[in-house]
């Protein structure tokens, strides 16, 4: 009971104190509360759920999804969606591994090359959405199909033979600071950059503005089309970077490695309280959503729940949590 009134008061204050929304958004609070509940439920099943090793391991697994969801969040904040994530991830991973086959220069440029491929996909998306005004759901679907086609032609239909470079493996599995996996550090850096961009730069303001009403943003002098294109390029690049990290984690790329990341990345962003209609949401929420989904998946798999049950629980939990705090207002 008290939490709803708390939320109401926070909501009232939030209008005047934009910086504080991020800390007190009821959706974010609920998401974090759900994480705690999940951990408690898990600890009833097995003590090891509360051990630091397990939690750190989960953070590491979450960081791949976190990197990808960061890009997805940027696009969703605009009121758009990026359905080209699966093959942006796969293209990033495959191209980075492929570049590694071309001697020392290739190895050195493997990571930037993989990310650039994702940026290229993102730019095509961005041109389609921003300049050609094609609904993002359609154009990203089409570029996803094209990227898939290119990768299938490139690999000849077999799983790619190239392996990840040492640098990729180091980024994904190594430890620079003892005890903290590199992947987590990378996610933290990318997250910090995103928070900075969203809250401290005109780019971030423009993103929120466009998400609320692109027409108004345009009239107030923002080059909305460029912002939208940049956002899609960043999303594509981050997806590909997520793919690079995943390839480093598994030490090679695989055909359908990105398929498992599209829906969770959207779910993570939305569960974190970002409105799918755009213009509203905080990065902290996305972090909560990512951890929530990773934990849910992990706990279900530790409990040796068969895939069928996992899917059902996953879907039911998502609907339940959205019904808890993701509902649209009733009045018109």
């Amino acid at each position, binding site marked *: 009971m008290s939490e709803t009134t708390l939320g109401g008061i926070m909501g009232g204050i939030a209008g005047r104190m934009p910086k504080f929304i991020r800390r007190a958004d009821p959706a974010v609070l609920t998401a974090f509360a759900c994480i705690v509940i999940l951990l408690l439920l898990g600890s009833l099943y097995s003590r090891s759920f509360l051990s630091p090793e397990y939690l750190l391991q989960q953070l590491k697994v979450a960081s791949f999804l976190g990197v990808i969801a960061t890009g997805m969040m940027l696009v969703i904040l605009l009121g758009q969606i990026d359905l080209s994530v699966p093959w942006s991830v796969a293209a990033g991973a495959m191209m980075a591994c492929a570049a590694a086959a071309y001697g020392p220069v290739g190895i050195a440029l493997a990571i930037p090359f993989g990310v650039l491929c994702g940026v290229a996909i993102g730019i095509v998306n961005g041109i389609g959405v921003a300049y050609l005004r094609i609904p993002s759901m359609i154009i990203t*679907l089409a570029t996803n199909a094209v990227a*898939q086609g290119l990768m299938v032609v490139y690999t000849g239909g077999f799983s790619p033979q190239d392996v990840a470079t040492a640098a990729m493996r180091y980024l994904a599995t190594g430890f620079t600071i003892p005890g903290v996996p590199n992947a987590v550090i990378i996610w933290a850096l990318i997250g910090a950059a995103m928070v900075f961009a969203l809250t401290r730069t005109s780019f971030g303001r423009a993103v929120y503005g466009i998400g609320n009403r692109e*027409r108004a943003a*345009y*009239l107030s002098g923002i080059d909305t089309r460029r912002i939208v294109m940049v956002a899609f390029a960043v999303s594509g690049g981050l997806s590909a970077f997520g793919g690079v990290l995943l390839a480093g984690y598994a030490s090679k790329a695989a055909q*359908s490695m990105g398929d498992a990341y599209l829906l969770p990345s*959207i779910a993570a962003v*939305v569960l974190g309280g970002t409105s799918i209609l755009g213009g509203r949401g905080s990065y902290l929420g996305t972090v909560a959503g990512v951890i929530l989904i990773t934990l849910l998946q992990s706990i279900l798999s530790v409990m040796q729940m068969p895939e*069928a049950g996992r899917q059902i629980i996953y879907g039911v939990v998502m609907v339940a949590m959205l019904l808890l705090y*993701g509902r649209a207002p009733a009045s018109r």
Partner: protein
Amino acid sequence: MKDWRYWLAEERGTLLAFGIFIVMFAIYSANHPAGFTANVVQTAANKGVLLAFVAMAQTLVVITAGIDLSVGMIFTLTNCMASWLVVGTGLETTFGVLAVLGTGLICGAVNGAIVIYGRLQPIVATIATGAVFFGLALLLRPVPGGSVNEDLADFLTGRFFGVVPASLVALLVIVLIVWVPFSRSELGRAAYAAGSSETAAYMSGVPIRRGKFLAYTLAGLLAAIGGLFLTFFTYTGEAAYASGNAYTLFSIAAVVLGGVSLFGGKGSAIGAIFGALAFRTIGDLLFVFDFDPLWQPLFQGVILLIAVSLGAFALFRVRNRLEWFL
């Protein structure tokens, strides 16, 4: 006097999809080694009809300005279900078919209830329900298998009088008993109105909630009919994640090719059907030209990219830049 002009303006998308399909199919059959024979048409029809049903399902929801990302999973779930239930004697088979269709209706109704009464965004809500439907499909068929009443299957995938593909006739029948009454009913119009401008429709006292609910429910039914036909073609049930997802994505592509506006309120299931048939034909074009099948996904993707970019020509008609931002 000018009636035909209104009709033309209204049906432009559908006619365009029809035109694309005719051209594509002409190229396809002209270059097919066997030529334009009943066999070629039957095979093409059987492949196309599956997507046509799913695309029809997607259309109903898209008309209300929503989107159903679970159609492919309803399709998969009902396929798995039919591989258990649509067997045995005539009576058993009938009950099986009814059960499968009922499941589709329930799936659609669940989607509708969550979106309309739960007030969740259709994209995320149907992603979540899609996961549930796929989980159920996996429960039914952890490994591919099962069987189907082969007499019924052969009857519905064969040919009538040796010429007309039975699946096309079935598609026509479904259009006549589901789509035509829906689009002409009060609730069907409410679905269109809700998609066009929900606020205006609400203010005018249009029963938008019931209209949208009916659209989602019927979408489940149509996806289930698609799943039933998949079982008739393959004789088995399989909970294939990739295939379910592909059908969802292809259905969106087919809907767009068929001139249905993703912003809602515009388009018809007939257009989506031709969009689906055209999309399938495009995918098969490569085979008749003896290309390496490896290139098929790329070719399909590029065609899709070009097709959706054609919509950008509308920008040339824009006189005020503010019209960019709908």
